[in-house]
């Protein structure tokens, strides 16, 4: 797994690439932008090939902590395999999920202005 971070319109975009399972989920949990509970981020999943429940748990945990701090985590560009994990577990309802990262950034910007 590789994690790339960039800034767009003042919003942090975290791009995940490769595989997230039990062997790589701890690295995701430790990533600064993801673990910072006060930082609203967009996670771009376009290049994420595989996610299992360990990776899902890391994403859910970070989302909970951000929500408690008034921040948000938005998800974009899931492929079918990744989406299937969210659908089966019902966790698709926990997140704002966008087909395009640009739309997620727009929404995050709107959220920030309203806070």
């Amino acid at each position, binding site marked *: 797994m590789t994690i790339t971070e960039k800034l767009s319109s003042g919003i942090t975009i975290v791009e995940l690439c490769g595989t997230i399972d039990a*062997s790589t989920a701890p690295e995701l949990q430790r990533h600064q932008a993801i673990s910072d509970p006060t930082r609203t981020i967009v996670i771009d999943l376009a290049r994420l090939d595989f996610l*299992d429940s*360990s990776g899902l*748990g890391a994403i*859910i945990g970070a989302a909970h902590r951000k929500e408690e701090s008034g921040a948000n985590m938005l998800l974009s560009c899931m492929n079918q395999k990744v989406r*299937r994990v969210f659908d*089966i577990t019902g*966790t698709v309802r926990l997140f704002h999920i966008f087909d395009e990262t640009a739309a997620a950034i727009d929404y995050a910007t709107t959220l920030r202005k309203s806070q």
Partner: protein
Amino acid sequence: MNSVITLTLPGDIRFTRLASQTASNTASLFTDTCNAGAGNWEFSHAFELAVSEAFTNAVNYGDRMQGTRDITITFTIEQRKLTVAIRDANAPFSAETPEPDIETYPERGYGLMLIRTLMDTVTICRENGENVITMTKQL
């Protein structure tokens, strides 16, 4: 005639991806052999995900003992049916793990839910001092 493929890996979380990729590749080979079409990604992904979850469970239970033991994965290819059995000689694994309360979106506990949803049949038992999870799916 059935074909059997066996893979033995150290009970180490670093080998999770090797286990799940082998499952995906074996399922793809199976669907190709059955002329099920290259578009059958759901079948391959079901095995990729189920084996990732089961292997992780086996390793995590092993961590509770002194020293983690090898994990053996056996694929059995039959006519239009693929079976995978994962065996480990670690501490007994309980199949009675409750499903997560999805209303609260917990961080853990989705593994067996995924396995049971993706596979046609799932059995978990203790056999000859080993945990054995057997998962089957038909094309």
